């Protein structure tokens, strides 16, 4: 008997393998590997240059302490701006849920205004419009550039924290408010004893994410002349005579610094989101 050619129906095909849930976890050492690769990639360029010129590694190592100092300054700016912004933003956020419309509407307007503005424009805003010194009575307090940059950066932080707070409060089921009301809790009591404690957990991941974004935004201060890691990099490159083969390694190094600082924060944020999702 002749064998008829078997037609394979789709239902008999083996299923497309479902991609396993385990996703590749980037480790910090991968970043180091990438940076090394980038630096090694500059070697061919180096190989053609004058052997009397210092090697790229030597130059980088020589400037590293200064750049690291500059980076620490970035971190200081980010922590301070985060502190100021969080306090102001929390107040603004609570204002947005106020029952008094004379508090609520201005709070909403301020939040939207500073959320919609580009961070660089707000930075310019603070740098140019804040005076270079303030007089309180007979006391004259100078306002250095970095302080103005800190204020400038705390403005968008304030607006975003305000939204985070409002979002967290609104995300709680209305049943919580009703139960508290039925037990004769006043609105203030309900807010501070029942609603806000539950919101803290929800606010933490987006707040950490905001901090990461803020840290990366501190380099904007270099555009307005504040001395931080980017400005120092520019100065270092200029001091080395504007060698074009140094550009890739130096900028890679700065990228690496931020990556090493911000990536763990991002991972921790993801971890926290998962943890809090389970409890809720």
């Amino acid at each position, binding site marked *: 008997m002749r064998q008829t050619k078997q037609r394979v129906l789709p239902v008999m095909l083996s299923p497309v393998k479902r991609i396993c849930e385990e996703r590749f976890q980037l480790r910090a050492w991968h970043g180091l590997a990438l940076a090394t690769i980038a630096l090694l990639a500059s070697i061919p360029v180096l190989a053609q240059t004058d052997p009397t010129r210092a090697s790229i590694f030597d130059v980088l190592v020589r400037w590293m302490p200064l750049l690291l100092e500059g980076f620490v300054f970035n971190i200081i700016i980010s922590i301070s701006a985060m502190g100021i912004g969080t306090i102001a933003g929390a107040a603004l956020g609570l204002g947005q849920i106020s029952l008094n419309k004379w508090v609520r509407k201005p709070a909403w307007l301020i939040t939207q205004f500073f959320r919609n503005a580009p961070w660089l424009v707000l930075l310019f805003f603070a740098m140019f419009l804040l005076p270079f010194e303030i007089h309180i009575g007979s006391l004259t307090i100078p306002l250095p550039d970095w302080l103005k940059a800190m204020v400038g950066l705390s403005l968008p932080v304030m607006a975003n924290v305000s939204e985070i707070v409002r979002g967290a409060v609104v995300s709680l089921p209305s049943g919580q408010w009703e139960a508290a009301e039925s037990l004769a809790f006043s609105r203030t009591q309900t807010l501070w004893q029942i609603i806000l404690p539950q919101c803290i957990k929800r606010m933490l991941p987006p707040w950490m994410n905001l901090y990461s974004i803020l840290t990366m935004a501190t380099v904007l201060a270099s555009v307005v002349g504040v001395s931080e890691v980017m400005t120092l990099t520019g100065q270092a490159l200029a001091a080395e005579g504007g060698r074009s083969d140094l550009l890739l390694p130096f900028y890679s190094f700065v*990228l690496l610094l931020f990556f090493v600082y911000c990536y763990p924060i991002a991972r921790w944020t993801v971890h926290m989101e998962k943890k809090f999702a389970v409890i809720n």
Partner: protein
Amino acid sequence: MEVFYEWARLLYETTGINLPFIYDSYDRARMLDGFFMTIKLSVTCLFFSVIIGVIGAFLQNSPLKWTRRIVNVYIQLFRNTPPLVQLYFFYFAIGTLLPKVTNEYGGQEPLLGGFAWAVISLSCYAGAYNVEIFRSGIEAVPDSTIEAAEALGFSRFNIFKDITLPLAIRVSLPALNNNLVNLVKTTTLAYAIAVPEMLYEANQIWSDNVNVTEMMVFMLLVYFVLVGILVWGMNKWEKALKIPGFGA
């Protein structure tokens, strides 16, 4: 229109509020150029970043281990480093490595100008976020729907194109909206590599006219309005695409 310009000049003379970008034709032209450059930057970057996002999301589901790894490295690198430094990296570091071309005057100029590098850098930056956004959109499509499609004999590519993508887009729209707003705000970074967008032109104007306060307030207002219009438009689009019973 002339009346409006004259009103602005009058305003300057009486109150000292100087708005040269209204009454002065040169400054007006500069401001408009800057505005359109910002729009051009935003639209171009949006276009490319969405493409990067879609391709990246598709590749993230690839059965090949190294494809997935490369996409994840790309995302983590671009999300955890400052966009300004990325911009400098592209423009200065990579830009000087590329060959130079002779322009029409016989001089040497880099192959890609500030605008091009800004587009490349910002698209990669926004694209990295878009990959994550599309990924969560794709994950929101129920497995059972995909299995039904597989049972009907759809190829992986067709499933993605006809079933996953339309549904994923609807779920991702709010986050995409947010990302678009951020993109428009991030175009101001191009200032740092002398791309003549709005902030750059505003800077030029206030350097000439010493009216920083007015320019700053104007900039804040313009972005406020621009973003407001964008958000309104995206909300309308979200509503138009809404499928009853699916999604939030």
